[in-house]
């Protein structure tokens, strides 16, 4: 009677023959222990027990069934394969599945929606569409979302990782399935896949990830996993020519085993012998991490301290991806799945708001893996992280999945999650930071990621927590994409996990330490159909070698046991069973914590600042309007009024009138003197009351001269409503000495409306347009207007105007109708210069402009009525005073203006 077994979980005592605890159903006998019908561990190269797994065939997922079928066919088709042949075999299948992805990537590049500001931060080269994107991206920043669904910023959940959109998971499943099919042969890419491939590939691991796949890439047959990370991988490929050359012969033995799974066993041993490890197949970086592994430095807790230390998991994950990929080529699941899945995993993993227990176990396992690799450098790193149990069976995880699941088929698109733990284990220290809500990991990781240089994969990983950013072509962008997707609410987290669409067979696997709020994981039900320890042969192949068993107990992190499921009892085995990560999917909620270093927080704050600068509305600055200077205004007013008033009141005549009379003034005087006596003359008063002082002074002399000499009959008219009153005032006050009376010597036609049109009409038919005088009396049949029916009947037309426009109207609109009647302009100084050309051209016979022009007329008129002389001293003195003040004040203000400009430019 064997002694009862104490359940390590619940402490319940169980009979010795029980494999599972009757209380908690946890495995009592670790798989590492002797299994049924098995004695002792398998030694390296040992052929596993042949197990008939045919009955499992129907329940295998479709892709796996196809894979197996394909493998069989290939095995049948091919004759006995030599090691070298076998090594090349996986590569022979890659082109088909990569052809489509090449297109996808190409298109993906075209549709890269990285905003320019983000691009500038990351240092990534700007896209050609940059300018077009600017506005929209800015809008996106301002509005907090991108208006174009297909143009989300990398890392945005919705588009960055389409498969994460819970709502859209169903259609994506189809697209993904389609994509998988396309991956097997050159096919057109799908839009979903673009974002899909774009947003995975975390910056820190990409360069490393590319390393083992380089050989394939160099052969022009890039596996999906590497193809998707081309932007920075291409550079790394150039750096890794050595590994590229050796790629074809650098295939781990476990692949050969997989290849030979259907063929004879002899080949297994063969392949087992001459298969170099992927570690050696990759470039010198590998040697570094091997050294580090030798040093046995534990990863967890020290990753942030030393970049070299952290490099190990990254490398392992990368090589792992390449390894399983090669394996998939031979193992026959549609190859597109694995890489894509492995690429997908970073994003969801980094988005995990809280590190689940199984992830912690990865950390521990990672440490264990190192100790485990002391003797097994050739093994893929994910095997190291998986702990000792899988030391000798590199192909473990992927093939193991179907074995674990025997109840539900695996949805193809969910397979990617199977690879989650590997690289997640390398990123474990980062994840919590990435999950902090107040400081989205985007900036933090964004700023860190650039440190990743394709040529320095190790530092790229190590830089994550600590290193400041450095330019990297494209690495940061996907990294940002992965980290920007960190949901800040538990709901978001649920949505992400829900959208992951973890296959049930994976979801059923329980995490090693389920959180209390989680009920019994569905894995418990999934296990039922499984007969404990009735493992398929290839699962048996996963059993650890003795050395690994010894090592597994050596490390402090090895104490963790898998308690449930087919692998119950295994230590640190979860990383080897990526599906197990999916078992933690659909958590209720996770608190989001980010353990960011000060530097990361500084970087995050920096990016936040940049973002806020983008979103913050720029307050419109009012144009500076110079302040009014009352004192200056008062001083100028006082100066002018006092000085000019003194001159006016003093009636001084110090300043002489201009000696030279302008030509146009002389012409005006001559024109007036040429008017026949007692002839009808039309006088237009087209000025405003504002200029009455100047206009009366300008016109008085000539009009007085005319009335004195020729006694003309006047017809007064105005195109201004107030003109008639001004005309009356002119006749009554300015020309009072001539005692002209309305109706006797002159008539006031009054206001001529219509401006240009009115003047034109009047010039065409004066009697019809202005039939009545200002006082509504008949005028054309009076004695004053006797013989006047047309404009040409007037002996002259005299226009008193203060504006260029009204003067031009009279000049131009009456030109034809005037006939030989001369036109004389009496204008304000402000309009005078513009009439000179008309004087020169003869359209205007003469002109008097302002006081200067009137001075000559006044002198010609014997000083009567003498307005100019009265005003001239004040006028001249005033102008000189103004010139001095304007000159000095102008210089002073010019200097002040320059000062202001300097201050403005400086400030």
């Amino acid at each position, binding site marked *: 009677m064997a002694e009862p077994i104490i359940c390590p979980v619940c402490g319940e005592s169980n009979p010795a023959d029980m494999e599972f605890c009757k209380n908690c159903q946890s495995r009592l006998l670790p798989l590492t222990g002797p299994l049924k019908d098995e004695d002792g561990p398998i030694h390296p190269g040992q052929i596993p027990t042949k197990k008939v797994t045919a009955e499992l065939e129907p329940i295998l997922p479709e892709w796996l069934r196809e894979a197996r079928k394909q493998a069989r066919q290939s095995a049948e088709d091919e004759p006995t394969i030599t090691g070298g042949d076998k090594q090349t075999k996986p590569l022979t299948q890659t082109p088909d599945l990569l052809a489509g992805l090449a297109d996808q990537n190409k298109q993906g590049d075209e549709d890269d929606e990285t905003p320019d500001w983000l691009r500038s931060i990351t240092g990534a080269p700007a896209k050609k569409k940059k300018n077009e994107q600017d506005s929209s991206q800015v809008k996106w920043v301002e509005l907090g979302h991108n208006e174009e669904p297909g143009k989300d910023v990398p890392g945005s959940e919705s588009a960055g990782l389409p498969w994460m959109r819970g709502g859209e998971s169903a259609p994506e499943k189809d697209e993904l399935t389609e994509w998988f099919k396309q991956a097997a042969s050159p096919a057109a890419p799908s839009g979903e896949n673009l974002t899909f491939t774009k947003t995975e590939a975390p910056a820190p691991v990409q360069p490393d990830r590319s390393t083992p796949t380089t050989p394939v890439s160099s052969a022009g047959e890039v596996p999906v996993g590497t193809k998707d990370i081309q932007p920075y991988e291409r550079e790394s490929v150039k750096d890794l020519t050595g590994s590229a050359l050796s790629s074809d012969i650098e295939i781990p033995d476990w692949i050969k085993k997989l290849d030979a799974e259907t063929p004879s066993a002899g080949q297994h041993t063969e392949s087992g012998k001459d298969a170099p490890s992927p570690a050696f197949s990759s470039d010198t970086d590998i040697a570094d991490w091997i050294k580090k592994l030798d040093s046995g430095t534990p990863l967890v807790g020290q990753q942030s301290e030393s970049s070299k230390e952290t490099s190990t998991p990254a490398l392992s994950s990368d090589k792992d991806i390449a390894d399983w990929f090669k394996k998939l080529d031979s193992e026959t699941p549609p190859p597109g799945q694995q890489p894509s899945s492995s690429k997908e995993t970073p994003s969801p993993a980094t988005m995990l708001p809280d590190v689940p227990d199984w992830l912690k176990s990865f950390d521990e396992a990672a440490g264990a893996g190192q100790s485990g690799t002391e003797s097994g450098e050739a093994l893929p790193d994910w095997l190291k992280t998986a702990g000792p149990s899988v030391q000798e069976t590199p192909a473990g995880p992927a093939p193991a999945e179907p074995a674990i699941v025997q109840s539900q088929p695996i949805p193809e698109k969910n397979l990617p999650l199977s690879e989650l733990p590997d690289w997640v284990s390398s990123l474990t220290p980062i994840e919590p930071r990435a999950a902090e809500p107040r400081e989205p990991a985007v900036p933090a990781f964004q700023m860190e990621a650039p440190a990743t240089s394709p040529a320095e994969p190790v530092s790229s990983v190590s830089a994550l927590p600590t290193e400041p950013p450095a330019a990297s072509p494209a690495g940061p962008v996907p990294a940002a994409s992965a980290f920007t997707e960190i949901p800040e609410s538990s709901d978001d987290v649920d949505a992400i996990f829900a959208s992951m669409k973890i296959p049930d067979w994976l979801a059923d696997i329980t995490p090693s330490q389920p959180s209390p709020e989680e009920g019994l994981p569905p894995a418990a039900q999934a296990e039922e159909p499984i007969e404990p320890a009735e493992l398929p042969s290839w699962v048996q192949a996963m059993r650890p070698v003795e050395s690994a068993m010894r090592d597994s107990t050596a490390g402090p992190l090895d104490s963790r046991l898998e308690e449930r499921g087919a692998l119950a009892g295994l230590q640190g085995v979860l990383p080897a069973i990526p599906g197990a990560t999916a078992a933690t999917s659909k958590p209720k909620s996770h608190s989001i914590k980010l353990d960011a270093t000060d530097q990361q927080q500084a970087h995050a704050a920096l990016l936040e600042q940049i973002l806020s600068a983008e979103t913050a509305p720029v307050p419109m600055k009012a144009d500076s*309007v110079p302040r009014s200077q009352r004192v200056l205004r008062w001083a100028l007013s006082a100066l002018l009024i006092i000085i000019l008033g003194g001159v006016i009141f003093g009636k001084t005549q110090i300043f002489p009138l201009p000696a030279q009379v302008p030509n146009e003034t002389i012409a005006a005087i001559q024109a007036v003197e040429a008017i026949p006596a007692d002839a009808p003359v039309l006088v237009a008063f087209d000025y405003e009351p*504002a200029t009455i002082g100047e206009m009366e002074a300008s016109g008085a002399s000539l009009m007085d001269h005319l009335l004195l000499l020729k006694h003309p009959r006047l017809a007064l008219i105005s195109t*201004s409503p107030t003109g008639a009153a001004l005309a009356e005032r002119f006749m009554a006050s300015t020309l009072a000495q001539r005692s002209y009376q309305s109706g006797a010597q002159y008539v006031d036609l009054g206001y001529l*409306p219509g401006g240009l049109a009115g003047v034109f009409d009047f010039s065409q038919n004066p009697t019809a347009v202005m039939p009545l005088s200002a006082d509504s009396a008949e005028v054309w049949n009076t004695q004053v207007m006797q013989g006047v029916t047309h404009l040409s009947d007037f002996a002259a037309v005299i226009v008193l105007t*203060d504006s260029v*426009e009204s003067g031009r109207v009279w000049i131009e609109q009456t030109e034809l109708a005037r006939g030989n009647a001369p036109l004389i302009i009496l204008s304000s100084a402000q309009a005078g210069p513009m009439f000179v050309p008309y004087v020169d051209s003869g359209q205007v016979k003469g002109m008097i402009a302002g006081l200067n022009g009137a001075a000559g007329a006044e002198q010609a008129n014997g000083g009567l009525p003498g307005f100019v002389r009265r005003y001239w001293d004040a006028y001249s003195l005033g102008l000189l005073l103004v010139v001095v003040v304007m000159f000095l004040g102008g210089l002073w203000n010019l200097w002040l203006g320059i000062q202001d400009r300097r201050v403005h430019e400086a400030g």
Partner: protein
Amino acid sequence: MNLLGLALVVLSAFFLLILSLIKRKSPPKLRGIPALTRLYRAVGLSVEDGTRLLIGLGGASLLTQNGGAPLAGLGLLRHLTERTSLSDRPPIAAAGESSLALLAQDTIEAGYQGAGAGEYYQPTTGRLTGMTPFSSVAGMIPILHDENVSTTVLVGHFGVEAALLAEASERENTFLVGSSDALSSQAALFASAHETLIGEELFAASTYLGAGPSHSASLTVQDVLRWIIILVLLAGTVLKLIGFI
């Protein structure tokens, strides 16, 4: 000469019509005019501040030779009204001529309706501030002081009296963009206004502030006619010098 003038007008109308109907992918590139740039900012600022915009249309009758400037002012008024119709304080249009004041009312109403805010239209926002040039300007000065005006735009036919508004706006510390088709007032405004639109720039104001395609088309036509006139001047000069004409 008459037929030549008619041909010029018909040709201009044809080009204007065609260019107005052509759907351009992007508005035509125009040289920068600092006054209009500042005006554009000032208009936005007035909406943000909830202050008022005062648009002076001048005192010219439409039937005078100066009727073009008030029409340009009405075009600008329409556009500004649409832009600022939802402001706390709607813009005020001040005219110095009765028919212009009525047109200002119609334009403002149309602008409100164009902006889908017809119910906010107030007839008193289109005002006749005076019926002579100086009285209309004098009537605008109290508006600057009493009605929280932040920006004043003068687009129309103004005389030198416009300088009084510039003076008043400086006292009230409000921004003024002045323009007129009258030469003397352009000189006065150049010295006294914060910003001045010289000559032809007056007619481009609405285009620069984003008015419709017909406005930008008119600028294109102006540019075409400008070069035609320059060529005519040069050719005429040469022909005159050689005594051909």
